[in-house]
């Protein structure tokens, strides 16, 4: 479930709940709306409870899309689930967002 708010500095999006194959289609359409709406979008992942490869793929798509249309996308507040998935897939440096490594 993605919620989007427009602020003076740019757009702010929250994703809540799972990001998996089961809601990937729904999330994607919500993404498209948010991505084109603002020059600079911050995506808050703090409330992502579960993420699978399909969810990761959506984030990759979002990032590539923003690069393509010369917008900016920053992922913030990665939840534990997101971080773990990023690490397994070796994507932390690809996204190149500041992350807080909580585990050792």
């Amino acid at each position: 479930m993605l919620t989007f708010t427009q602020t003076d500095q740019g757009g702010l999006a929250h994703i809540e709940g799972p990001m998996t194959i089961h809601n990937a289609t729904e999330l994607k359409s919500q993404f498209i709306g948010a991505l084109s709406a603002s020059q600079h979008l911050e995506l808050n992942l703090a409330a992502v409870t579960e993420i699978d490869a399909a969810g990761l793929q959506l984030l990759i798509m979002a990032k590539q899309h923003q690069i393509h249309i010369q917008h900016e996308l920053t992922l913030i507040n990665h939840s534990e689930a997101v971080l773990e998935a990023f690490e397994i897939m070796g994507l932390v440096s690809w996204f190149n967002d500041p992350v807080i490594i909580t585990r050792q």
Partner: protein
Amino acid sequence: MDEIEQVLGLYISESRELLDEMELLLLNLENEQDKAESLNAIFRAAHTIKGSAGIFSLDEVVHFTHGVESLLDKMRDGKIVSNSELTSLLLDCKDHISLLIDNVEHKTGLTEHDLLNGNALLQTLLIVVKQEGTDGPKVQAKDNTQLTTTQAVERENSPKVKSDNWHISVRYHPDSFRFGMDPLAILRYLATLGDIESITSLFPNLPSASEMDPETCYLGYEINFKSQANKLDIEGAFDFIRDDSQVHILPPCSRVSDFIALIESLPEQDIQLGEILVQSGSLTPNELEYALSLQRQLKSQSIEVPLGTIVVNNGLTPQPVLESAIAKQNQIRDGKTKEIQSVRVDADKLDQLINLVGELVIAGAGSSLHAHSSGDRILIESFSMLTRLVEEVRDAALQLRMVQIGATFTRFQRVVRDVAKELGKDIELVITGAETELDKTVVEKISDPLMHLIRNSMDHGIEAPDVRIEKQKDPKGRLTLNAYHDSGMIVIEVSDDGAGLNYEKILKKAQEKGLIPEGESLDVHEVNNLIFEPGFSTADAVTNLSGRGVGMDVVKRNITALRGTVEVQSILGQGAIFSIRLPLTLAIIDGFLVEIEKSSFVIPLNMVLECVELNEGNSDISPSSQQSYINLRGEVLPFIRLRRLFNLGGRPPKRENVIVISYLGNKVGLAVDKLVGEFQTVIKPLGNIFSHIQGISGSTVLGSGEVALILDVPNLVQKILTTESAKALYSQA
């Protein structure tokens, strides 16, 4: 969640099939000359179960199956020689895996007892494996690397890459997500086998946001993997996806040529992929340079070597690994073609169809009747066409439920083995006629009585080895299961080469029990069949008799409930044959409709031989006599009048008809008023209150809406042939 559940369900049913296969192979293992092939197949079964379990994070299954695999691996390598103790151990292990799979299905945990049992089994496995050899088939395989090389590679003398890590390349099939696979889960599993030193995720085919389908998988990755695991284990992580995705696994210190093959086989640009390999640490920049130049050279010479050939000829992959991979692929391919050819249908839906076809048959018969009575030729003709089609539909519908009995038979392999061991006997099970088909509902219901007969033959029929030697028999007893079709019935035989039934003892016992009056003389066959009488199933009988007959009345009851019969033939000292005769299907039969007064009866058509007219000139046909005989072309044919038998009253017409029926080679006649003709009959079982009525096995509804009773021919034949019983029957009527 539903999709995952579905895939998991698929895994569960696949595992069960594999376990069944494993059991069968294990049971046959001892008799086989060349065990290598079976061992490979058993190993593959275990390996596939483990590999797929890893993907679903079924740790218990993975853990346990891994232990089994280690032993099988040793056996495959010839380091541990198979023997019957090991087979028993492996059978127990197989049972435990079944249990684990059951638990997966029901989402329950193991009971304490099973848990302890599982641990004990694992311990045993560990000890067996430890004692008989050192671990590491992979190390050994590496030692004999320098086998042969292909010309192409020999000429180039491909050097080895320095990295001592594995390199794994994966490109997922676009539909992977839809099949319920999560690449993340596979990586997590891989991480349990070793360390992922570096990973580069790739998504070169990811389309622009507008075109991207979120449910399609565009992912792939290159992994530099540090692990002591062997190749099979690592491959196991990808077993479930390998069929439709690209997976390449290069062992540590692979040859540069292998990397070339890898680079060539993957979809990305050569240079880009090369860079990733360097970045991941699998290749050094120099090696990449060399590899690319080598690749160009080979390309210019248009030499194309399949990856498999390169890998094996370089001696890097042990041959068995490749073989197992190929076998697995074939298996998957076979599975796919099967999938196309067959559809799984709910048994309920099938039953509903059969029921409807049954109703259709009745309605068709009714309409046909009206058509005939209307006398309209065109109508009659069109109805005869319709009737033919309905008949075909009926046959096709019944065919749907036909299954081969072989699967039921082979299940007894295990029973025979276990019971023989328990009894300290050496018994082999021989199966013939496994391809004989019969109705699925019958197959299911016959399993129990068969089990009883088999256990009985093993327990009381076949003697202990020392006794057999004394009797100059082969110490190994032989139990045979046989099936065949005989005049619209299926016959299942359970025979043994044991001691046979002791006629004297049974007779004595029967007299004690008052089952036969004093002075009554019965032939051997009749006496032997007394073991099916309820009186013989008491505990007393077990000790006094040889034990034959324990619960045999139950067997008989179950078989009778299926409209079948059971008989025993025995030769003292040589063995016994139990024959079960069953109708092929329980739902619809071809019948022959007859009338007496206003009542209609149906005789199963397959038992009708002919119809003759009852002539006054023939001998002993006085209407008042209870049982009569006619002269059928010089033969004596006993017959009874159904009118008298069922006490229908009224007067017989001037010309009666006799229907000659045959059962088990015995011919008898049934005298009736009127022959109506062939009639498709949908059998409706009689209610419980009518279950004691003899001579009637069911009922059916005629087209006119009237009810006709179906005659129980085996029962009637018996009654007619044994005069005494016939008298009893008349007095009842």
